[in-house]
């Protein structure tokens, strides 16, 4: 185990912790931006430090293709290669194959896929995934799991869950740098509470440095989503970090943190920036919209980032989707927003005002009081009273309730 996880504060299930990794001491809850190919699109590493990024994610599949894990290893690991002094996490590569390649096929041996380089069939085994990740050298590496879409039902879900458990042992056995890199196991089991339970127990028995909740954020209903998170966080050990994979909407992060999750990753903040959308406390601001052309306010008047301090919506409007600088500036703001959200979650838990923070957050996002029902349900389980934000029920909600 190459990490320390100290809980500094709690509110019911929510926790704020210090997660000490080989390259950085992080504060949770935290959001990890995705730097697929060894760079966060359009941002330099010292900007990422300035924004407050603690861990960034690299995609094993892409890095293994270019520049290859052997080259990264030869040049001293990914930290050195991209000159990022803080923490890194790599995924197993399996998810990318299944989602990007039509011809990926999963068998007991591993994930078979058609090489995008020469079209030949290739096999990614759990051993190989770990070997590649050992070469890349991230602080946290992920076990290869059998990924199935959450919307799939039937015996395939069960098969994938059991296979994930069998593969974790192969991953553990293959892991050559356990004192420098932390192998996280991934809880699978679809939306079936029984299967999720078996998977959590199986992984916890292996006493891993941390655990991820996988197979979510893939089109399931929000109600199913939070229930799986709530079930897993309740069953996972208190003293280990919990990472909900692929989650990146601010609202989802607040809900999952209330339920006791610690880490999140998603391409959303940077991808949506490239399409001209800014994250703001009220939700999103579409800067391409004509109304922005003469709006002389900053993107978010309450934001202290370099972009909001200097630029108007009108100026960003004339840059977005046309000039490189538009996506650079919006990505900067959006990541700043996500880092501020992470810090606010952390400090409000420590300062024992987490419920107040959640209420303020929900009030800004739902000024009409129309907080979605799944959020209300999740908050009830999290033991957070949000009745003050749900006061003014709008006409639309009344219609839906009837």
């Amino acid at each position, binding site marked *: 185990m190459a990490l320390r996880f100290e809980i500094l504060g709690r509110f019911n299930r929510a926790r704020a912790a210090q997660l000490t990794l080989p390259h950085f001491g992080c504060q949770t809850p935290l959001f990890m931006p995705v730097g697929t*190919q060894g760079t966060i699109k359009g941002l330099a590493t010292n900007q990422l430090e300035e924004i407050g990024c603690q861990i960034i994610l690299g995609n094993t599949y892409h890095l293994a293709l270019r520049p290859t894990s052997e080259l990264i290893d030869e040049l001293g690991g990914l930290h050195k290669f*991209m000159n990022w002094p803080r923490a890194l996490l790599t995924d197993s590569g399996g998810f990318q194959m299944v989602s990007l390649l039509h011809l990926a096929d999963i068998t007991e041996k591993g994930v078979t896929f058609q090489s995008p380089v020469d079209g030949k069939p290739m096999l990614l085994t759990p051993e190989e995934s770990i070997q590649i990740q050992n070469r890349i050298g991230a602080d946290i590496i992920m076990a290869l799991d059998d990924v199935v879409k959450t919307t799939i039902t039937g015996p395939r879900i069960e098969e994938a869950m059991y296979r994930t458990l069998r593969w974790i042992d192969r991953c553990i056995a293959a892991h050559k740098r356990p004192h420098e890199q932390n192998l996280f196991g991934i809880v699978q089991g679809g939306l079936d509470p029984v299967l999720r339970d078996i998977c959590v127990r199986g992984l916890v028995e292996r006493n891993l440095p941390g655990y991820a909740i996988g197979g979510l954020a893939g089109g399931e209903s929000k109600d199913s989503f939070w229930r799986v998170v709530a079930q897993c966080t309740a069953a996972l050990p208190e003293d280990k970090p919990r990472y909900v994979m692929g989650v990146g909407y601010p609202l989802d992060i607040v809900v999952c943190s209330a339920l006791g999750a610690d880490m999140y990753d998603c391409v959303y903040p940077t991808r949506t920036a490239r399409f001209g959308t800014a994250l703001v406390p009220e939700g999103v601001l579409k800067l391409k919209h004509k109304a922005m052309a003469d709006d002389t306010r900053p993107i978010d008047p309450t934001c202290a980032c370099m972009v909001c301090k200097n*630029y108007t919506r*009108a100026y960003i409007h004339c840059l977005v989707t046309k000039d490189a*600088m538009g996506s*650079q500036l919006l990505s900067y703001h959006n990541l700043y927003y996500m880092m501020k959200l992470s810090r606010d979650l952390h400090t409000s838990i420590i300062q024992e005002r987490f419920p107040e923070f959640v209420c303020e957050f929900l009030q800004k996002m739902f000024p009409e009081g129309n907080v979605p029902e799944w959020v209300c349900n999740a908050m009830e389980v999290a033991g957070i009273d949000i009745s003050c934000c749900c006061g003014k029920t709008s006409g639309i909600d009344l219609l839906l309730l009837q």
Partner: protein
Amino acid sequence: MKFAVKAWNNGRARSGVLQLGRCPSPIETPSLLLSTRKGLPFFIPPDFLPSLPSPDSHLLQVCPLHFLEGLSPKTISNIGGLHQMLGLHDYVLAAVGRDSIQCLPECNSTNKIGASFETPCGRLLIKPVEYMELISSLRPNLWATLADEVPTWVSEKRNKTSVDRTIRWLDECIALSPAGGAVFGAIVGGSSIEERQRCAQEVAGRNVSGYWIGGFGLGESMDERPALLNAVTDTLAEEKPRLICGLGLPEEVLQGVAAGIDLFDSVYIYHLTLGGFALTFPLDGLDVNESDFQQSDFGSDPTKINLRATVYRKDPSPIIKSCSCYTCQNHTKAYINHLLNVHEMLAQILLEIHNTHHYLGFFRAIRAAVKSGNFEQFRQQFIEGRRDRLAVAAAAQA
């Protein structure tokens, strides 16, 4: 605006000091104006601008036509003009109609009412009154009057017309000019020495703070350029600064300096950056630095390297070991090669930072040479050094 020439070399080359706006300290010339897209560098994020050499990097060229897309002059005025809109309060912003990259003069569609440009939003015809409306809302520190620029291959008659129009528009622009902002009178004349002189004479007779020399980089040869440049600069008042558009390569800049040009645009950096090139020519003493130059590196020459080349795939060294720019202090050639291979924007950010830094260093070396009276020697050394190294490279490849 204050400008003073401090040193002369060989009768024409000169070094001076330019004081404008809220720039932290006077800017020495010859100097480079950084090209921008809508006021900010193409890729260098604004929070990185302070890491470039100062005050050298505090001159930015802005193309008013960029703002015809998406922003009204009224909104720009409401924001408070360019400096406020860009968050660049202590920068000198120079507005010039043509950006030489995406906004190019289109002489066939230019007519007596206005100048035509090819732009990313199609062909645009802009009248002096519209141009001045933009200038009034942008409030740049200095601006060039609207010009009718023509390439070298137009008829003598068309070239004469371009001079007539440019002078008429100069008067119109000055009549409409807002308070504040130094006016640089546009000079054209194509490849005709007589027309160049005529235009320069007319402009020199007007109430302008400086001169903007257009119509270069539009088809004239390197060999015919010195005579054309000299015809212009010999006609102009010595005490006013001269800004030129369209000379980019190091050799071209040296030609311009030799003719007495003070300010240059930096289109060259943009093209290098997009092509994956990094400038590597030595700046101190211009000695040959063979280790920086790889023969197998396609497209490179002794002044620059192509970071797309596979020789850099595993190269753990910075572009230039002694370079103090952010890129060289933080990243390797191998990393930039990877970023180029996977089409990541950070490649362009890092290359634009290094190339800008390096080219500003080149201008610093030019100023030092002019000030010490060695400009001609410096220029010869640079050109010969480059020729020799090209020959060495060609021999090695044969």
